[in-house]
């Protein structure tokens, strides 16, 4: 286009020049006409010069673009060669459609700080517990979860007397693999929280509205190493369901080194190591539960559970337990729950004993009174009665009155006073700040 313009310009000049010459040959040209023609020629010359410069710039740009094109082609060629080499080394698998289950790591748990005083003793601050739970979801159907309890404690010597410094206690509360076999069956294996009642599974520090556990939970193991099948069968569409758990675990054992099975040898939590089961056969247990909600926040749950198995080295002594649990919610403000448990322990020295007990706990959120006081609306009053009888002459009853103040949905400020009755019993006062995460 620019070349053509140049050519047109030259031709125009040539024509004009010819015309001028012919006109001069045929007739005289006035000064005015001559000057006008001169101006026209000068303008044409300048325009031609401009077109020449533009043409040169265009040529330079074309040259640069050619160079860049060459470099790009070289890079593309190299990349294609590399891809070819990589493809020969590893087969390429097509990415499955849709989102795939990815490894997912999440930490939940809770932490508690306490300030407490026992009658006759000094008050003290206590880092009661830091209890992280690690959740690792390996696929849509598999979850590995492990919980720890990490606590600080004053040092003691081998005789249990005070010693300098402090130590950190690290306990593995549970570590289990959960596999969702189908909609109705989940396989659980590892160090499991045992479904004897519901307290073990649903009582992490910040979930329990009173800082300490019911006394009677000491007659049961909280966890055990084994395998479990659990699941739920919905009944209708109202949310009603039947839940079940059935499991096998190593079970309680004897702490004696000489093979005895006296009452004092019973060890509820010691049969978990990498050595063979201390007795020949594992124990077995399970829970059946019925949950009936008649509307949101109005529900009843009843459950019955038990476990039985050998506990002596020789296998000739049985340990058994039965637990009945219940929980009732009447609206978002009121809760009542409890457990009754009885164990039967065959022993070498005192025959069969039945350590047993029960607890019942009620809680009421003052927001249910519908008062226009913001502080009051965050308070929940809690009361509990619990008792334990070891069937060897020791019985303790405890009455606890307390409160929970909800600083947020997961930050709780709790306080309670515990009245104990029994041999060696003492009253306690506890304040606790607990945080669930």
């Amino acid at each position, binding site marked *: 286009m620019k070349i053509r313009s140049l050519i047109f310009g030259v031709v125009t000049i040539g024509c004009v020049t010819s015309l001028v010459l012919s006109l001069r040959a045929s007739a005289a040209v006035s000064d005015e006409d001559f000057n006008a023609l001169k101006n026209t020629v000068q303008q044409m010359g300048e325009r031609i010069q401009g077109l020449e410069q533009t043409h040169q710039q265009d040529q330079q740009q074309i040259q640069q673009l050619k160079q860049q094109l060459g470099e790009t082609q070289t890079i593309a060629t190299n990349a294609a060669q590399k891809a070819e080499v990589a493809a020969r080394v590893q087969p390429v698998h097509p990415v499955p459609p849709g989102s795939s289950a990815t490894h997912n790591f999440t930490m939940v748990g809770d932490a508690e700080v306490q300030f407490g005083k026992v009658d006759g003793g000094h008050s003290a601050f206590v880092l009661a517990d830091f209890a992280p739970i690690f959740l690792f979801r390996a696929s849509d159907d598999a*979850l590995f979860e492990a919980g720890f309890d990490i606590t600080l404690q004053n040092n003691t010597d081998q005789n249990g007397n005070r010693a300098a410094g402090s130590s950190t206690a690290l306990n593995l509360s549970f570590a289990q693999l959960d596999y969702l076999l189908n909609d109705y069956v989940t396989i659980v294996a590892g160090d499991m929280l045992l479904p004897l009642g519901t307290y073990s599974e*649903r009582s992490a520090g910040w*979930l329990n509205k009173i800082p300490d556990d019911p006394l009677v939970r000491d007659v049961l193991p909280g966890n055990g190493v084994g395998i479990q099948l659990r699941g739920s069968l919905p009944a209708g*569409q109202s949310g009603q369901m039947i839940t079940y758990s059935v499991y096998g675990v190593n079970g309680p054992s004897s702490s004696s080194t000489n093979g005895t099975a006296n009452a004092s040898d019973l060890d509820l939590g010691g049969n978990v190591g990498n050595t063979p089961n201390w007795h020949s056969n594992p124990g077995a247990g399970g829970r059946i539960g019925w949950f009936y909600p008649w509307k949101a926040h109005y529900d009843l749950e009843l459950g019955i559970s038990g476990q039985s198995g050998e506990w002596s080295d020789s296998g000739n002594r049985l340990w058994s337990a039965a637990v009945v649990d219940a929980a009732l919610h009447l609206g978002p403000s009121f809760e009542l729950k409890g457990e009754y448990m009885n164990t039967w322990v065959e022993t070498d020295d005192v025959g069969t004993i039945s350590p047993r007990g029960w607890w019942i706990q009620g809680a009421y959120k003052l927001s249910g009174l519908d008062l226009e006081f913001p502080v009051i609306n965050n308070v929940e009053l809690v009361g509990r009665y619990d008792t334990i009888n070891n069937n060897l002459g020791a019985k303790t009853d405890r009455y606890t009155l307390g409160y929970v103040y909800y600083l947020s949905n997961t930050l709780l400020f709790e306080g309670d006073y515990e009245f104990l009755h029994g041999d060696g019993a003492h009253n306690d006062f506890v304040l606790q700040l607990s945080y669930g995460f």
Partner: protein
Amino acid sequence: MGVTMVMIGGLTSILWSAELISDSKDQKPAKKTEKRLTGAELYAINCNRCHPERYPTEWNPGQWKTVMTHMRVRANLPAAQAKQILKYLQEDSGN
């Protein structure tokens, strides 16, 4: 030995029953459909029984999937209900 056999028999029965339930659900004739509870309703029924409610914005969708798997096992929630609750939580989840 006896306890072991009972345990093996119990485990086998549970697995076999679950398979029968899965099969029978496919074969039953269609019956009148009841109103299904929404994810929000199931959340209100189940997720405040043991702990104060957790807000959907506390975790992102992937974390909710992990947490709900944990809760499905811990609270023994039916699979369909757990999926409904998860969907409800993920809709308003955080980042």
